[in-house]
Every structure is written in structure tokens, then in C-alpha cells.
């Protein structure tokens, strides 16, 4: 079973509240958001219950904190591959998963679901991955959405194009499933090693 996180960094708190890290730091320093500093350093830490009351007091939806799960959208037209990634993430337990199999649905779902991270196949039947990246990045409400592209056949120059279009990372198919989870954790600022 998933172990509930009890203490958060300002970065993690910012992600959960969907505000900037600066805002969290300001609230922390002004005393609106209670917490402590790591002994011997100036690093701020916020206990779970303090974060919860801060969110409730300020009208921030608390479901992200309640479930403690990060929202992931998987976009790939290969059903078996979607199933594989879903399986891997479900076993991990820290992710809430939705899946679509084309670029158009991906665009709709990003708006509706506002995922923390998208696992995006580059070769989709309709809109290609690069365009999906551009569309997500065109909406500034989606600035915090991380995108990991995956593809079976992408040349180096195409990877640069994807990054320019707003992708945060890229992985070749086939990939080590653990590597994928590792990279996702890295981009979501959560612990890499997770024992389920």
C-alpha cells in the first residue's frame, strides 16, 4: 500500500496547491502556512496537517493532498503499450491514471483533467506529438504540466524539435519500465525509489 507522505518541501507544496514555490515561501515566511526549518539549515518543511488546513482556509481543492496521487495522462495509440504503462504505474501506486489513444482526445483531456505529467507517444494517428506539446504549451494554465515523449523511431534532430516544442524529456521505445517511472518521479519531484 502507498505510504502517505507526512512532510512536504515548499516545491512539493507548491505543486499540490498549484501555486508558485515563491508564493508558498512567502506564506511560510509570513506565518500563514505553518512549518519548520530543517535543523542546521534554512530548508523549510511543511507537515501534512498544516498544509491541509492552509489549503482548506484558502479554498484550494484538497483532493490532490487527500489522495496523495499524482495525475498522469498516457497518450499512445498502441493499446498493449498503454496497458503496460498503466500496469506499471498502478503497481507503483502513487499515480492516478487516465489514458487516450489519439492527439485530439489528448488535447481535450489535458484541459479537463489537468494532469501533472503526460506520457506522450510522438507518432499518433491524427495530431503528432510535437503539435500536442505546442498546444499544451500555448495554454499558460498548463505551464506546470510535465511532458515525457516516447517513440520507437525518432532521430536526434527530431528530439531537439520536441524539446523546443515544450517536451521535458524523451525516451526511446522499448524502454526499461523502471527507468520510465524514475524519470516520471524526477520530473514530478517525488522520491525516485519507491517500494510498493
Amino acid at each position: 500500500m502507498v505510504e502517505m507522505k507526512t512532510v512536504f518541501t515548499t516545491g512539493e507544496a507548491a505543486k499540490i496547491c498549484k501555486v508558485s514555490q515563491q508564493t508558498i515561501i512567502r506564506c511560510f515566511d509570513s506565518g500563514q502556512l505553518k512549518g519548520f526549518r530543517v535543523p542546521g539549515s534554512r530548508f523549510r518543511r511543511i507537515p501534512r496537517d498544516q498544509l491541509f488546513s492552509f489549503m482548506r482556509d484558502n479554498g484550494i481543492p484538497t483532493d490532490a493532498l487527500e489522495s496523495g496521487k499524482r495525475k498522469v495522462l498516457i497518450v499512445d495509440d498502441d493499446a498493449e503499450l498503454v496497458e503496460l504503462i498503466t500496469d506499471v504505474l498502478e503497481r507503483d501506486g502513487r499515480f492516478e491514471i487516465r489514458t487516450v489513444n489519439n492527439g485530439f482526445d489528448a488535447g481535450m483531456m489535458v484541459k479537463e483533467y489537468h494532469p501533472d505529467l503526460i506520457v506522450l507517444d510522438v507518432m499518433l494517428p491524427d495530431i503528432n506529438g510535437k503539435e500536442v506539446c505546442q498546444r499544451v504549451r500555448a495554454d499558460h494554465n498548463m505551464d506546470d504540466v510535465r511532458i515525457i515523449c516516447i517513440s520507437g523511431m525518432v532521430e536526434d534532430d527530431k528530439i531537439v524539435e520536441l524539446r523546443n516544442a515544450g517536451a521535458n524529456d524523451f525516451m526511446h521505445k522499448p524502454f526499461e519500465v523502471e527507468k520510465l517511472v524514475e524519470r516520471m518521479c524526477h520530473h514530478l519531484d517525488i522520491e525516485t525509489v519507491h517500494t510498493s
Partner: protein
Amino acid sequence: VIVLPLLVAASQRSWLPMSDAAAVSLGEWFLADPPTRSLESLVGILQGDPPLALWVALKADRSGSAPSRSLADLAALLAEHGLAWLPWDAGSIDPEIDAGLGRQIAAQVAVAVLISELAAELAEVHGATTAGQARFLGLLHDPAQWLAVLKGTSSEQAGIGPPDWLAPRHFDPAAHEAVEQAICRIRVPPRSSNTQGVPAVLADMPDVSPECLERGLEIASHWAAPHRAARWLRVLTAKLARLSALEQSFREAVEVEKMAAMSEFAAGAGHEINNPLAVIAGRAQLLLRDETAPERRRDLALINAQAMRIHEMIADLRLFAHPPELERQSLDLTVLVRGLIDNMQSLAAEQETAMSLAGAPGEVRIEADPVQLAVAIRSLCQNALEALGQGGRIEIAVGSEGNEASVAVCDDGPGILPEQRSRIFEPFYSARQAGRGVGMGLSKCWRIVTLHGGRLEVDNRAGSGAVFTIRLPLGKRDDDTD
């Protein structure tokens, strides 16, 4: 016959004027330009009494009174329409009835056109009365032969080969000059810079078919005085060499097309195959996580590893399809090869193969990507090692010739069968019987060498073994000091 030129064409008899003056006057009238004589009337005369018409035309042309129509015009006219105009007895040369005979006569007329062109050229060089025109008259002095040629009554003897009257005895040295110039005018298409243009090359081929040039050579040899022949032959040899170069570039264009098609396939297949591979590998990894039985763990790891192996092959193919950009720099090929041999020495020693540089080559400077070129040469060495299996000897020769540098990797293993040679650079073409060309090594080499603007050649050595030769354009040497 010489005294009284009488021509008999089937049932028709033609009496030709003995008097030169009469013939010349008639000829001038015959050849005069419109409005005195229109083309139609000229045709009419030709149809009415062809031997007479031709006889007086030749006489007039020789007389030097410069009729406005030249013999060349007449010959061209005959070549184009002559067959249809000539009123020989129905049936005997009707082209529709006897197409073969028609072609034969047309061929002879075409030869006549060539000769009249030469005559015209001679006229320019030597003034009015020329050896070339005299030759035409010489022809008329043997009317039976002439008729046989034109009418084809003795087509068997006449054949399509050079007629007897083209024999050297009719020529003076000036004629040789003219023939040589005519040969120079044989059209050869310019070298196509676009190797993709296979159809264009094909379209140009008929004009310079080897038969055509060989025929030219044959005719030329009939006419050639020995000291002249050398020059003609040089010109013809050059043209034939150009032709064979064209054929070679056509073969190369086909090769390039074939490899391009494979690259396309590689790019497409890569994407399709990697998806299921990702599922196979991923599922095996997931199962492996929970598996404790050692036997099954090993099997699952194997499934994963083999799926990844396929992926690597695909990656190789993709590299072949879309290789990285070359990073060229000036380098000494000899140094590169020496380094490579040192590097591979231990690998060769493992299978007791002697690997060495042939001779003591000096500096061979080229513009190339040192990393990729090393990969190319290395794959040739690896191919040789695989072919030898155990023992044997590999010699690598570096050199330059003309504007090309070369690296030749020779081994004394099994050679390459003719049927393998055309396919040996194809990705994954497996010539396992010979132990060569397995996997991507040779394809990779071919690709890199081609990118460098070079060629990769394969040949068997006399005795046994194979030699793969990389040929690269030599770099510009700024400090060139003879």
C-alpha cells in the same frame, strides 16, 4: 559501260548524256533553287528519270559552277523521302511489301548522306572540285553496283555492311581529315551530374549505342591510312570510354536507388517493430520483478535481453537510414589505418590471424570524418576476421592514385561468390556459406564511404581470399610542392 553510261532499272532504260557540258547544264538546271525549280518539280524529275537526274546533279556539283542546291541537300532529301519517291517497278522495292529491303535501302541512303556531308566539308577545305565528289563519279562508273545498292536487286551481296565503293582507293588524304571530323561530331550525351536521373540516362543511350560506334569504327578502318588511323582510333576510343563510363554510372545509380529504398524501409519498419518490442520487454521486466524461481528469472531476463537485441538491430538500421552528419577534417589516412591496426591487433591475435599494414605508405591526406571513417575501415577488418575464422592473414594497403585515395583490406580466406557480390552490402544480407557479410558491418561501411563521396569495391584475389577497397577523393593540398 564507262564509255557509254547506260542504266537499266527493271523495264526502264536511262540514257545518260556523254557530254560533260550537256550534263552540267542539265544538272545546274536540275539543282537550281526556286523559283526556277520548286521542290515539287525536282521530285517530279527524280521520279521521271532517277538515273539521269542523279547523274546530271553529280556532274553539276563537280563542275564548280556552284548550283544553289548542293549534293548534300539532294542526299538529305533522298534519305528522307527518296524511297517513297523513287519510281522503281511496283513491288520490287515497295517498303510496305518488303520492309526488310526498304530498311536496307534506307541504310544505304543514310550512308550516302554521311558521304555527301564529307564531300561538302571537303569542298570547304579544297575549293570546288574535290576528291569526295570525284568519288561519287567513281561510283557512277560502276553503275551495276550502284543500282544494286539503290534498288537492292542484289541485296544479298550488297548487305548492310560498308559497300565496296567505300574502299580506300576512292579517297585522298583530305578525305581522312573530313571523316575524322565527322566522327568527332558523333553525339555523346553530356555526363549527368544527377545520378538519380536513371530514365534520362536511358533516354540518351540509343544515340550512342555501342553498335553505332563500333560500326563507325569499322567504316573508319576501311578508309584509314595508317598514320591517320591512330588519331581516329584515339577519338573513337575516348568516345567508347565515355560510353562505358555512362554504363558504369547507370549501374551505380541503380545501386544508389536500391540502398535508398532500403533506408526508407528501415525507417518505417523501425517504428512499427519497436512498439511490440516495448510491450514484450516491458512485460518481461514486470514479471521478473515478482518472480523468485531462478529458472524462470533467467528465462524472463532472456526474453527481455533478446527483445532489446532486436531493438539494437533496428537502431543499426535506423543509423543506416539516417546517418549522423559527417564532421570532416583534414587527416592522414596512413596514420588512421596504423592506429586502427594497433587497436585490432589483440582481436586478431585471439584467432591467430596476422594483421599488418602492407609496405610503408607515406602521408595520404584526405578530408574525412575520422570517427566514422574508422568505423568503416574497422568493419572491413572485422568482416575479414570473421571470414578467416581462425589463422590466416589480413593485409591493409593504403595508397593514392590520380585524385583518389584508397584503403584495401585483403584477406586469404574464402573469396566471394559472384551471386553474393551484388548483394553483399545490403543490410543483414547473410552470405553465411562464405562466412561474410553477416549483419550490418559491410552496409555501414558502404554507407559511410558513400557519404564521403567515395566508393566501396569488392573483388576476389587471384588464388584465394577477397579484397575490399575503399576509394575516397583526395583532399586539396595547399602546401603542394611537386
